């Protein structure tokens, strides 16, 4: 089963939930993998250490246009859905905007004059770290300046292989990186906080997941902060409240020291185990 831990707003506690869920499952002897899909800012490895057992470079192909062979027919420009080829026939100008290329290969098919070849552009890497025989971390990390982390996220998820539980720590927001993560999940846990920002972004995430047809529930982190709006909204929309994590300085302290709540305070391990049992019954 694959469970994605996501949120609209950043900093609501996705990594707190996913690392503690991972730890609790591991303690219970469940074979588990945690995929850090927040490839622009991976941080799971700051909480859980493992030995690197596999490392893979993620790259994409980028077209290279030979202007001497090019007859300026404009076919490649026409085939490109992403406006990645700028083409000005009167001035003999044609250029690839590398950041916009999605590596679909359409321009190669379009060109009948052999003017397009491809080069490889490195986007990032995916590292698998073994915590023990039953537990591993898979970390996707995109190179700084890469336009989209999506290919790195896809490769991160591909490295999962049949663990009985896979936890996907999603990037924040609701754009392509979020979609690339949650589309592979059987169930999505949205982590929010009871503040106006938290509620606003929760609504956006919920609408996106409904559109995708993904079952989901909500964890309210920093409960006690802000107001009751989030609870009212969840009730009105019949969205399950899976768990509450209190607004507590001690939790913040443990987290900021890079330690795991469920390890330091066993009562939380029990809570995360309960959450896990509950999630197992949710499988679509």
């Amino acid at each position, binding site marked *: 089963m694959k469970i994605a831990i996501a949120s609209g707003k950043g900093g609501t506690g996705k990594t707190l939930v996913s690392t503690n869920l991972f730890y609790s499952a591991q303690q219970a002897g469940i074979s588990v993998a945690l995929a850090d899909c927040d490839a622009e800012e991976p941080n799971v490895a700051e909480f859980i250490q493992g030995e690197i057992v596999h490392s893979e470079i993620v790259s994409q192909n980028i077209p290279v246009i030979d202007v001497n062979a090019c007859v300026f027919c404009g076919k490649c420009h026409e085939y490109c859905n*992403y*406006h*990645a080829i*700028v*083409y*000005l026939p*009167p*001035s003999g*100008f044609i*250029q690839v*905007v590398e*950041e*916009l290329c999605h590596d679909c290969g359409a321009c190669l098919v379009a060109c009948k004059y052999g003017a397009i070849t491809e080069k490889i552009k490195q986007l990032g890497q995916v590292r698998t770290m073994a915590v023990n025989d039953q537990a591993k971390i898979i970390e996707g990390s995109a190179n700084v300046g890469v336009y989209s982390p999506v290919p790195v996220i896809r490769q991160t998820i591909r490295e999962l292989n049949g663990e009985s539980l896979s936890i996907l720590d999603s990037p924040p927001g609701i754009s392509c990186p979020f979609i690339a993560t949650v589309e592979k999940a059987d169930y999505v846990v949205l982590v929010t906080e009871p503040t106006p920002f938290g509620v606003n972004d929760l609504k956006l995430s919920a609408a996106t997941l409904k559109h995708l047809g993904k079952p989901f529930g909500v964890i309210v982190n920093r409960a006690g902060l802000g107001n009751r709006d989030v609870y009212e909204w969840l009730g009105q929309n019949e969205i399950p409240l899976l768990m509450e994590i209190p607004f507590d300085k001690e939790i913040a302290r443990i987290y900021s020291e890079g330690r795991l709540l469920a390890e330091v305070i066993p009562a939380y391990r029990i809570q995360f185990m309960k959450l896990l049992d509950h999630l197992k019954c949710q499988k679509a």
Partner: protein
Amino acid sequence: MKVAITSTGNSPDAKLDSRFGRCSYFVVYDTESHSTEFIPNPNKDNVEGAGPASAQLVASKGARKVVSGEFGAKVKSLFDSLQIQLIVIHESEKKISEIIELINTKN
């Protein structure tokens, strides 16, 4: 010489559009004939790549200079290779007619 200006509307009284790729209109002003052409920006609502597509549009209109509030990283290098000069105006309240006046006094 032709100068492209990003505009929020299709009249000389409209204000400068501070965004290049997703502006509402492009004004192409000819400094010799003093004619202006307003072109609705077809790339305004592109999911991505609005900048390069707009760069292609203004270049195809023969503009040698482009006036806007800001330019993204992807179009800067494109305009460099096209040898088109970028002019940034931070006063977003400026009207198109005022910008045209400025261009005329500079020439």
